């Protein structure tokens, strides 16, 4: 049986009794209290929601920590970019086409992210930075001008293995004994060589510097910083950081390593 109360012949209420209990003011008062607060209404969430999203997006974009994050993102791209195979007896010149993003934390390894295309030129040519990646886009006058600044030939470089080991902390590159910090421009340009310990020799590296127009990245074969780059370092980069990245070294056994990136600041 269902739960049900049954009342038999209950005393009926008169209409007057019911009318006496009418209280419209109470209904009005309670309705005003029971109204949905503004923050619960759907109209509240439209403008306020948009404002909140805008604020959050602005905060995320303005936050300088996120810039570091972006750098790390490009760093990961960099680390996963394998060194390309180079034909024998060639000098490899790379030209960055995108703005290089850098993280200039002196306590940490400096990283450079580049998106580059490659151009293979005749070994008799010198290292020619700032040449457009597409040979068809290279200004012949510019090339001729650069040819006049002859550099010693860079050693032919065999293709680098696609999987490059990250160098251990013991194997460190340096210029004039400096891995990270200020280096006299004279020291850079007199020796112009990136040294390495543990019996390793630098065979290629990327150098990012200001060429007077924009920040550029050049791929250099060998351990020597070309004189053309040296001139630009002297002219445009004194007091500003220069990043040397993707440093690949090889020992006498032919084992290759990718070493930690360097950040140097040329000074007079």
């Amino acid at each position, binding site marked *: *049986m*269902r*739960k*049900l*109360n*049954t*009342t*038999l*012949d*209950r005393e009926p*209420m008169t*209409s007057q009794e*019911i*009318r006496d*209990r*009418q*209280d*419209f003011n*109470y*209904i*009005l008062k*309670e*309705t*005003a209290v*029971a*109204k949905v607060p503004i923050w619960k209404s759907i109209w509240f969430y439209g403008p306020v929601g948009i404002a909140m999203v805008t604020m959050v997006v602005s905060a995320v974009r303005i936050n300088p920590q996120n810039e570091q994050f972006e750098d790390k993102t490009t760093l990961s791209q960099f680390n996963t970019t394998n060194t390309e195979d180079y034909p024998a007896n060639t000098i490899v010149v790379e030209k960055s086409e995108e703005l290089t993003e850098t993280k200039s934390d002196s306590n940490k390894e400096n990283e450079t992210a580049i998106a580059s295309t490659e151009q293979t030129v005749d070994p008799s040519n010198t290292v020619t930075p700032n040449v457009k990646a597409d040979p068809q886009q290279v200004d012949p006058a510019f090339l001729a001008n650069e040819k006049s600044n002859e550099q010693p030939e860079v050693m032919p470089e065999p293709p680098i293995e696609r999987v490059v080991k990250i160098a251990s902390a013991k194997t460190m590159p340096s210029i004039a004994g400096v891995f990270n910090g200020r280096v006299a421009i004279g020291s850079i340009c007199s020796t112009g060589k990136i040294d390495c310990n543990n019996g390793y020799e630098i065979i290629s590296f990327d150098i990012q510097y200001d060429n007077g127009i924009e920040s550029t990245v050049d791929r250099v074969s060998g351990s020597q910083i070309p004189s053309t780059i040296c001139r630009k370092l002297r002219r445009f980069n004194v007091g500003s950081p220069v990043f040397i990245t993707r440093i690949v070294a090889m020992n006498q056994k032919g084992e290759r390593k990718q070493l930690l990136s360097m950040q140097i600041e040329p000074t007079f």
Partner: protein
Amino acid sequence: MAVNPIYHQTKSTLLQERDWIMEAKKDPERFGPLYTKYHEQIFRYVYQRMDDQEQAFDVTSQVFIKALSNLHKYEYRGVPFSSWLYRIAKSELYQNFRDRKAKRTVNVDTVHLADITEEFDDDNLVADKNRLIRCLAELREADLQLIELRYFEKRAYREIGEILDVTENNAKVKTFRALERLKKQFLK
């Protein structure tokens, strides 16, 4: 059988009601005439299903508060405003039963019980009041509601249809079937 006289309204009174609603949507204080008109009806509907008078007044007040709060959602469909109020009242009633964990009440007038047995169309049937009440308690909620609306509250089929959101004919058929089931139960 006498029917609820308040339910029957002329077209002009329905239109007047519509105007009150339109005004009340703009200004809640204009809801007063509707409240005065329907307070007693709704109270009697609620009190019929409850045993406590004060609780019935509270539930009735809640019905009008809900109605006024949601008046902007109400659409006039050519039927009395009370149909909408009854649906709110039904919802509030069951909410009240749930909140208090109380049993639903059926208020039975013995005079009305006789009306039911008359409908059984069996001259040999001896009306046993207590047994009929027991049978009512065993009916399904939907059937009990139909019997209650028709025989205890004396409502027109049209009004029953509007309260239950069915057509007049459907209300009539459903009430007849509910009565048949009650008879079957009674003769068992």
